[in-house]
């Protein structure tokens, strides 16, 4: 037990430490080195020049803007089970269900709104969905608009969003 | 003409500042009045072409006295309701200023003849003042410093808790 104890010497008691100026000199040396290096070649600074340079490190696990997936025959995969709306902690999903006539299932959403201004991008809707109908794999990280209504995405907009990492089609049900 | 107008403006500043200082109930505004009066006084010195005195006035009165008194105001945090109630303050001010008028006239009479005893000097540089202060006027200078020392010792004695009160408190 005793040999595991490592005694760390206390700093600040020697004359040089108490003088404080050598420490400041060392510190200024470090900051000046950084300043000079970056002044000499500012393009080497690891900064993303954002609007012109787009981020390249968005992975498939990144939770971007939502999309609604399609079945192989291009019809909507969602069955309006309200699982996502129930799981949503921000209460930002508004679904209105209607009877489904295209022979796949009984229900489909008549309207499907996501208020992205309220959305916290937690991904619970994706987890909750039993038929892989909602995903957040578009890789879109910035949504812009001129008024509040622009941020409430409807069914058509969500269906139009493309996945950025393949798997265009819903995998759960056919 | 220009000199007289500047003089009257400065005098108005000084009078207004002094009146604001004694008549205001909020301590900080009193301090501001004092500040204005002191800057006016410095302006007077500058008007007399005595630049060193003007700057020394600003340095000592504004830089030290006003700042320290304002620090005290900040620390004691005196509320307006804790101040003494003075209903007839302005009456008293007017009565007392009428009462001291004869003395003021006397003082004016005495002081207005003083400048004849001094030789006319041009711009007083700081070097001349320093040389005079440490050669001809060294004794008065030192006596004034003893006065300051006495004042300081007195302040410390007043501020120090006596043994009796400290025992009572403990």
């Amino acid at each position, binding site marked *: 037990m005793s040999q595991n104890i490592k005694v760390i010497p206390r700093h600040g008691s020697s004359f040089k430490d108490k003088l404080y*100026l050598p420490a*400041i000199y060392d*510190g*200024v040396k*470090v*900051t*000046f080195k*950084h*300043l000079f290096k*970056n*002044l*000499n*070649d*500012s*393009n080497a*600074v*690891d*900064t993303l*020049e954002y609007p*012109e*340079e787009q981020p390249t490190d968005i992975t498939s696990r990144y939770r971007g803007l939502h999309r609604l997936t399609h079945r192989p025959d291009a019809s909507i995969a969602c069955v309006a089970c309200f699982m996502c709306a129930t799981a949503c902690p921000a209460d930002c999903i508004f679904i209105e269900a209607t009877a489904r006539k295209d022979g796949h299932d009984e229900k489909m959403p008549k309207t499907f709104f996501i208020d992205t201004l309220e959305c916290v991008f937690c991904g619970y809707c994706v987890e909750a969905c039993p038929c892989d109908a909602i995903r957040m794999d578009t890789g879109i990280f910035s949504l812009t608009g001129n008024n509040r209504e622009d941020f409430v995405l409807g069914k058509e907009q969500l269906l139009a969003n493309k996945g950025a990492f393949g798997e265009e089609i819903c995998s759960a049900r056919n | 003409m220009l000199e007289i107008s500047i003089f009257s403006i400065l005098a108005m500043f000084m009078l207004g500042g002094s009146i604001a200082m004694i008549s205001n109930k*909020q301590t*900080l*505004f009193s301090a*501001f009045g004092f*500040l204005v009066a002191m800057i006016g006084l410095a302006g007077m010195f500058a008007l007399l072409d005595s*630049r*060193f005195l003007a*700057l*020394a006035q*600003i*340095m000592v009165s*504004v*830089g*030290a006295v*006003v*700042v*320290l008194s*304002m*620090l005290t*105001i*900040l*620390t004691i945090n005196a509320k307006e309701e804790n101040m003494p109630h003075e209903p007839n303050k302005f009456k008293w001010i007017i009565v007392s200023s009428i009462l001291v008028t004869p003395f003021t006239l006397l003082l004016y009479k005495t002081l207005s003849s003083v400048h004849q005893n001094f030789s006319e000097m041009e711009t007083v*540089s*700081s070097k001349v003042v320093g040389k005079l202060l440490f050669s001809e006027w060294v004794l008065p200078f030192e006596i004034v410093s003893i006065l300051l020392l006495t004042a300081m010792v007195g302040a410390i004695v007043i501020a120090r808790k006596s043994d009796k009160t400290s025992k009572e408190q403990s």
Partner: protein
Amino acid sequence: MSTSAIVIAIISFALGALLALLTIPVLVWLERRVAGLVQDRLGPNRTNIGGFRLGGVVQSFADVVKLLLKEEYYPSHIKSGKWLFMLAPIITFAAALLAFMAIPFADSMIIDGESLRISALPIDFGVFWYMAISAIGVLGVIFGGWLSHNKYSLLGAARASSMVVSYELPLGLSILAFIITYDTVDFNAMVAWQSGTFFGFLPSWGILVQPLAAIILIVSLFAETNRNPFTVAEGESEIVAGFMTEYTAMKFAMYFMGEYVAMNTASAVIITMIFGGYQIPWVSTEMLLENFSTFAVSLMVVVPIIVTILIRWMRKNNTVRPTVSTDGGRDFETKVLTIVMIGMTLLVEAILIYLAFLTDSALANNIAITLFQIVVFVVKLMMFNIFFILIRWTVPRFRYDQVQKLGWYYLLPLALLNIFITAIVVVGVNL
């Protein structure tokens, strides 16, 4: 008063006002850019007027416009003394601005036997002026903090003012040591004293003649200007923004600009008192006047070299990475600035050739040397401002009690001891 005296007075006053006021946006920009570069990021570099971004300095002007156009807002709990609440930042700003005015930007010009000072206020007791006027600035802080009727403001004002008052003593005592050494209270004469040499080879700058007093002066001036590591007046985590908490828009900007002007003034005082002011080491004004042609030729060699380095640096750094699609007009800006710089260099060279070989006018030489000294002064000023900024991003803050302890227990006795030693040495030398 002759015509030349009036012209010189007006020009130097304009120069002083310009140097004090125009450096504010430059300093704000410099602070943000240097902070960025020290921390391996870029800082503001996008704002531009017609594609000219000048490294981002336009950002500060945009900020000024924003602050000017912002709504003037008064907290509703401020009942009495609204005028003093508004006046307080102006006191601080005006004091900082006025304190700068006594700094000489160049050696006195001698025209027709008349010695004309190149400083905004032609006074021969600049040190007194600086100490007297800069002491007023703290009054604005106290008034603002008290009238805000806010605990944070009051505490911030109390902390700021008590720190300034405690550091006024070591500052005054260290300046006193310099006054004893230089035997003058005139900034210009101080600079003239520093143009000699010391031990035969060192420039007799204050920092080499009086190292202890120089360090105390620098440390106390850091405290006087409320710069890091002495930022006790404001602290996000403790007292929000200190005395500025209730201030908005232009009233806040007054305090903010006052801080930068005070920093600029402190830099100017430091370089004037301990770094040889407007002079380059080893070379006094008389030496420049006597060997004017040598000076002109060496300047003719040095200026193109500096400009070449600058242009190369600009061409390298005023670009974007190859991965970026558009360069936002940087290429055009670089081209125009290169042409402007080369044109100005050619102009300077032509003037220098004319002065060195074609004319023999003493007045023209005098003016050229004055301009040169102003340039040296500005360069030194900016270098010391960058030093102020670098220190801010290097050193962590002091706790409040540590600040007071440093001031009263260490700096004050050291300054007293230094005066004692200085007096003994000066008397001993003069015996």
